[in-house]
């Protein structure tokens, strides 16, 4: 049986002949980042291989390895099969993801503390009863009523945010962010659904996130001197797919037309596999539709959308642009596939929002660009917010034309200071935004597709409720990603209509703040379970007008 030596991890792995390097790594618990789940499109699983002729064989994939990397022995782990002893150099990803910049705060409202779970001390027996609803689910010796905690968890496709809450006071004791470990196996939602349609894939993804939750709980307890057995409830707020995966539910029907959810939400499930009280449970907020999930339900709750006078548009900008339009208590929702461009994926110099990511780009009046790089280091890539900033600004100053074409210096009307930044790479125009970082024509096209999808969703939703952009009073952008955006870059590139200028407000992580409300007040649970049924589900894929609206929204 071939022996694979993973050098960076200093680990020998035995694998059957014909196993891919990626599979062998997974079986051994070594993480090789594979955002496309081994389909061969993303190229992120490239590793260096050393071994005699015939000990490994690379198959052709969609992703074309640049010749200079092939010369250095790089192969795609997902498309390379092992037939003899080899040495693999795969980067240790664990250390790279520590510097991610994630926002964990979100808008909220006031509510009374009346949790579903209660602790009551029975003096005659000297025991503390734990009640769920009004039912007794367990007891502890002595008076433990002062040790009463819960978790509000926002399960993002890319990031997890976990808040530890004191259920007696409602105070948020601490909060911890982490990378969603599933993203290392499968980056986007569709790839994850595909992977989890098979039992072994579901198991891998479920266990990865469960272990991460437990790590987070342990860390939160340790640094706040709390015992995890006094955590009684967790709220899972995330998109519909994430909730399926976190509860080990096969999400297959979500991946194919007519895209249906297996879970409906609005119920509790066992928390036996989490480091919590033996009487603990997990509450799943109600799901609006297959692609408008509990994170949006939490958002509607936190932003109190149904109570707002006038017209409010609520958007969570991410891989899926999920949005709710509220007009004097009438609500309609939809979601649109923006793709992973906003997370820096499929972008030549794209990266996550960690050290070295260019996150702000502004062309000043004298034509010189002003930039900011996370960690105040030399830029090594562009994160999602930086990408939108760059495109928004370049459209404004004319480096990018209305059709999305990069305008050559001799034809461009933009400032002479910017002209030297337009260079050629392999005969194609690229625009440098820092010494080593640039955007290509293809990158601009990716942004066009992504922003076009969001804009088309906004337009279709307004049409569904008969609302014109001018009558929208307020636009609330939710999501940790959204918080790093600027109104001007969203409007300059046409992701949002011009009429929204001056009305955009960034409300932060409402998935988490809403989850906190679900944790602390049982009344909002029944209230939201009912309200969700009244939200009009606007299904875009079935509307023949969608293509026209989308295509129109592609231009700047």
């Amino acid at each position: 049986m071939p022996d694979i030596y993973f050098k960076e991890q200093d680990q020998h792995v035995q694998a059957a002949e014909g196993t891919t390097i990626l599979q062998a790594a997974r079986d051994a618990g070594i993480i090789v980042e594979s955002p496309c789940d081994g389909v061969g499109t993303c190229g992120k699983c490239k590793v260096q291989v050393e071994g005699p002729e015939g000990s490994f064989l690379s198959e052709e994939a969609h992703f074309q390895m640049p010749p200079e990397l092939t010369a250095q022995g790089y192969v795609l782990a997902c498309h390379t099969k092992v037939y003899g002893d080899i040495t693999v150099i795969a980067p240790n990803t664990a250390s790279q993801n520590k510097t991610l910049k994630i926002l964990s705060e979100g808008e909220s409202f006031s509510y009374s503390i009346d949790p579903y779970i209660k602790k009551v001390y029975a003096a005659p027996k000297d025991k503390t009863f734990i009640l769920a609803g009004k039912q007794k689910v367990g007891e502890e010796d002595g008076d433990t009523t002062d040790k009463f905690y819960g978790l509000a968890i926002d399960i993002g496709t890319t990031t997890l945010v976990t808040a530890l809450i004191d259920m007696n006071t409602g105070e948020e004791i601490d909060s911890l962010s982490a990378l969603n470990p599933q993203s290392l196996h499968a980056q986007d939602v569709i790839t994850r659904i595909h992977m989890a349609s098979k039992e072994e894939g579901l198991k891998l993804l479920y266990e990865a996130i469960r272990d991460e939750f437990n790590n987070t709980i342990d860390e939160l307890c340790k640094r706040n001197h709390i015992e995890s057995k006094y955590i009684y409830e967790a709220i899972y707020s995330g998109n519909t797919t994430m909730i399926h995966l976190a509860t080990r539910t096969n999400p297959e029907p979500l991946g194919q037309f007519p895209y249906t959810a297996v879970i409906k939400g609005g119920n509790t499930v066992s928390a036996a596999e989490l480091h919590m009280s033996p009487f603990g449970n997990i509450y799943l907020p109600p799901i609006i539709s297959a692609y408008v999930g509990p994170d949006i339900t939490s958002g509607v709750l936190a932003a109190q959308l149904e109570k707002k006078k006038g017209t409010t548009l609520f958007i969570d900008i991410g891989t899926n642009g999920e949005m709710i339009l509220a007009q004097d208590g009438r609500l309609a929702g939809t979601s649109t596939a923006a793709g992973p461009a906003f997370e820096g994926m499929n972008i030549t110099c794209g990266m996550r929002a960690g050290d070295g990511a260019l996150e702000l780009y502004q062309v000043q009046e004298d034509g010189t660009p002003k930039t900011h790089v996370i960690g105040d280091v030399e830029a090594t890539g562009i994160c999602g917010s930086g990408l939108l900033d760059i495109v928004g600004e370049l459209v404004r100053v004319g480096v990018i034309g209305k059709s999305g074409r990069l305008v050559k210096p001799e034809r461009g009307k933009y400032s002479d200071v910017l002209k030297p930044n337009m260079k050629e790479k392999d005969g194609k125009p690229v625009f440098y935004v820092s010494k080593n970082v640039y955007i290509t024509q293809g990158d601009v096209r990716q942004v066009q597709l992504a922003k076009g999808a969001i804009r088309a969703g906004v337009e279709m939703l307004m049409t569904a409720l008969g609302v014109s952009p001018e009558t929208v009073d307020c636009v609330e952008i939710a999501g940790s990603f959204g918080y790093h955006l600027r109104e001007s870059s969203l409007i300059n590139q046409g992701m949002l209509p011009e009429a929204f200028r001056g009305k955009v407000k960034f409300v932060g992580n409402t998935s988490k703040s809403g989850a906190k409300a679900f944790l602390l007040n049982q009344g909002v649970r029944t209230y939201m379970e009912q309200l969700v049924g009244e939200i009009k589900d606007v299904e875009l894929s079935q509307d023949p007008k969608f293509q026209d609206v989308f295509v129109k929204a592609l231009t700047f």
Partner: protein
Amino acid sequence: MTAETRETKGQAALREQLKRNLSDAIVEMEVEEAERIAKEITAQGLFQMNLLETSVAAGMAVASRLYEEGEYFIPELLSCADAAEAATEIFRPYMLGEKPAPKGCVVIGSVEGDTHDIGKNIVALVIEAGGYEVHDLGRDVPASVFADAVEAHHPDAVALASLMTTSMGHMADVVQELTRRGTRSSCKIIIGGKPVSTSFAKKIGADYYAPGAGEAVRLLDDICSRRS
């Protein structure tokens, strides 16, 4: 004497001019201008069947090339198609007699489970502009419908689209259905879409993978030239 030879030199020159103008209007996405020129052609009695190829299709071929080179994007290509369609509408009542024979016949569709079809529509457009007869079955198309279309149209090739990893498995269903019905060897199968590749084509028993619309046309040209 035929009508052509009776025509004055002036008329022939005018037709040449209008033919070029129409082609340019299509490339320039000028829908109304294309319609106006087409009307002028018919009003002057200058319409000939070959204009469809030398003017309308020629304009679309230029547009397809610009799209492939990255000069044009989806909205531009679709606007060109709108202009071409507007001109064709004007010509339709005059389109008597022999149509220029297509280079071949193609059945295209997005496979079952997939409702994405903008990319597929672009490919269909470019293939049609490349001189092929195209039968577009739409989206979320079951394998049996592809097989029925193969029996009805006897295409040279079947083009399958899928944008999602969750639906690309249904491409294999189409291959199997054609095999089951004994029509698999009557046509080539080309697959395309974000998650698929040449190795996936091999795996499911399809013939080719086309990474883009231009590549699809080149494959078809190759398939049809070998056939004849």
